[in-house]
């Protein structure tokens, strides 16, 4: 498969009056054409900031991309001009955001918002764009699309708005769709519908998807690979089945233990992870998970573990082999 996007050692910081927030600390990953990569981690672990750094959507200042490369074909996204970025956003890489209730402009009709990028990027005329907008809405499952083009966002339900956001993202046939927790703000039944919709569209349009979520349950049926993030680091990356069956990082282990599963006994209590996520205002020196980790050894506190292979394509960033408990 052809490599679509390769990010190397991305570091993003925020300079605020209280100091510096170390939000993304050397993230490297890649995604191939047509592939689906899930990015998992708790709130504030840098999932969204990583993606927004790549698309250069963060306000600078306070944000600052300190180092790294994001190779898209033979171009480095972090070094493109603002104009080139505008051309690329929405056209080659599209992004769908978490809250569909606020992601649509409340004073513009759905039709106008949908036709906007068609006209900007593809130079379509008014009528062509309107016709294409109807097709897009039908594609994402909005009934009676032609009549609902003139509606305002408040006349749509949450699930329908997220469908509209997806339609907007798809309108220029991007090769990569970044979905930033697109189901978090929705009901569970609607969540399932949206996941199914994205799967269907991904296969139809042969599009790569980066799916950001903090819900490991959603990931299983959707993605081929999973990347687990913690405190701005990638701590583990593996094929979905490998990660679920053979987690190699203590954090992943703890996350899975906190997840209710139908194939486990129900009278056992779910385990929570002790302690709190690290303070991102302090420059990381050792493994960021060490203070909460039951496997931690002396080395963890002073040396940041690199992501290293633990078998096949499976990589983990840990000084300890969690299957034996022995240092590596």
């Amino acid at each position: 498969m052809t490599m679509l996007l390769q990010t190397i050692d991305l570091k993003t910081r925020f300079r605020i009056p209280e100091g510096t927030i170390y939000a993304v600390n050397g993230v490297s990953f890649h995604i191939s054409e047509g592939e689906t990569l899930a990015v998992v981690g708790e709130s504030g672990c840098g999932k969204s900031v990583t993606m927004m750094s790549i698309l250069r959507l963060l306000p600078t200042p306070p944000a600052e991309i300190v180092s790294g490369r994001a190779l898209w074909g033979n171009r480095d996204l972090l070094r493109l001009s603002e104009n080139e970025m505008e051309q690329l956003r929405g056209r080659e890489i599209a992004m769908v955001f978490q809250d569909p209730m606020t992601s649509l402009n409340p004073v513009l009709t759905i039709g106008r918002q949908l036709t906007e990028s068609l006209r900007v990027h593809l130079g379509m005329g008014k009528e062509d764009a309107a016709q294409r907008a109807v097709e897009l809405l039908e594609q994402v499952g909005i009934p009676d699309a032609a009549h609902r083009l003139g509606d305002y966002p408040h006349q749509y339900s949450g699930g329908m708005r997220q469908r509209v956001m997806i339609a907007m993202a798809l309108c220029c046939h991007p090769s990569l769709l970044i979905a930033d927790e697109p189901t978090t703000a929705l009901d569970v039944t609607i969540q399932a519908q949206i996941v199914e919709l994205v799967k269907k569209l991904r296969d139809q349009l042969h599009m790569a998807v980066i799916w950001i979520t903090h819900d490991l349950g959603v990931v299983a049926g959707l993605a081929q690979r999973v990347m687990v993030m913690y405190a701005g680091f990638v701590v583990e990356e593996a094929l979905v089945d490998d990660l679920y069956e053979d987690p190699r990082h203590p954090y992943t282990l703890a996350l899975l233990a906190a997840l209710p599963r139908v194939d486990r006994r129900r009278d056992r209590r779910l385990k929570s992870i002790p302690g709190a996520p690290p303070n991102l205002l302090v420059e990381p020196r050792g493994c960021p998970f060490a203070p909460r980790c039951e496997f931690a050894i002396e080395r963890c506190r002073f040396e940041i573990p690199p992501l290293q292979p633990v078998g096949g394509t499976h990589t983990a960033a840990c000084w300890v082999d969690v299957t034996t408990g022995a240092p590596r």
Partner: protein
Amino acid sequence: MQTSSQPTPVMLLPADELETPPLSPGQLAWRRFRRHKMALFGAVVLILLFVYAFGGALIFPESYANYTDTSLRLSPPSAKHPFGTDTIGRDVLARTIYGGQISLIIGLLAVSIESLIGILVGALAGYYGGFLDSLLMRITEAMLNIPEIFLLIVMAKFFGGRIPEIHLLGRVFSGSVIVIVVIIGLTSWMYLARIVRAEFLSIKENEFVLAARATGTSNFEIIFRHILPNSIAPIIVSATLGVANAILAEAYISFLGLGVQPPTATWGNMLDGANNYLESAPWLWFFPGLLILLTVLSINFLGDGLRDAFDPHSRAV
């Protein structure tokens, strides 16, 4: 045999009552506006004033408004001159009609200039922030620190008489009309700029702005097609009230003799000639004064109504 215990039929609402079609933001605003009796009153009076100023011109030709008959100077209201005549025998009624046109046009044009500058300054400062914001806001504050009437007088003195007469729509406008429009526009945009900046500061943080950027929308389009329509309500309210202020400002400077120059009449410069005859010829100031009062009052009522109608916090319908 039929069963006697038939279930009570369920009452079905007719389809159109089951689900009232959702309303657009404009329709919601109109609903709230309609409930505001004073605003409706203001709107009606304002329409009547426009009809008076522009319809009246169909009855009296402009030459009649400027026709001087010194034998009839300062005659009180009569059947021939319902509003009386002025110090050189011109018909006050006809002059309030043509003066009204100028006053209303000045109000509208001055507000157009005010809105243009105010929106641009506020939008750029609010959207880009940083150095540009500081620079534009310091200029705004500097302008605010100069008393407006002083600015108006200095600028009126400076530009007065430099602009030739203008022929438009078969009428001759004194160049001083343009001068007044420009100086009122240039001295009144600051409050609007602040309002627009505040709106932009809060609206640009919305996720739909981020979403728009993520689909490759340029800054120009985000400013004018995404954020500006969201802040249109306070702008409309402020612009409406701005019309009243512009008419008043024109009245001030014309009253001081620095505004629109005779023979072109405005409500303001009609008052200028009246201050020596406050008691002996009250019709000189009463009618133009009343018209200014009515205009400003009804615009303010209208502005209040629009404010309530557009206020996102009053979601009641």
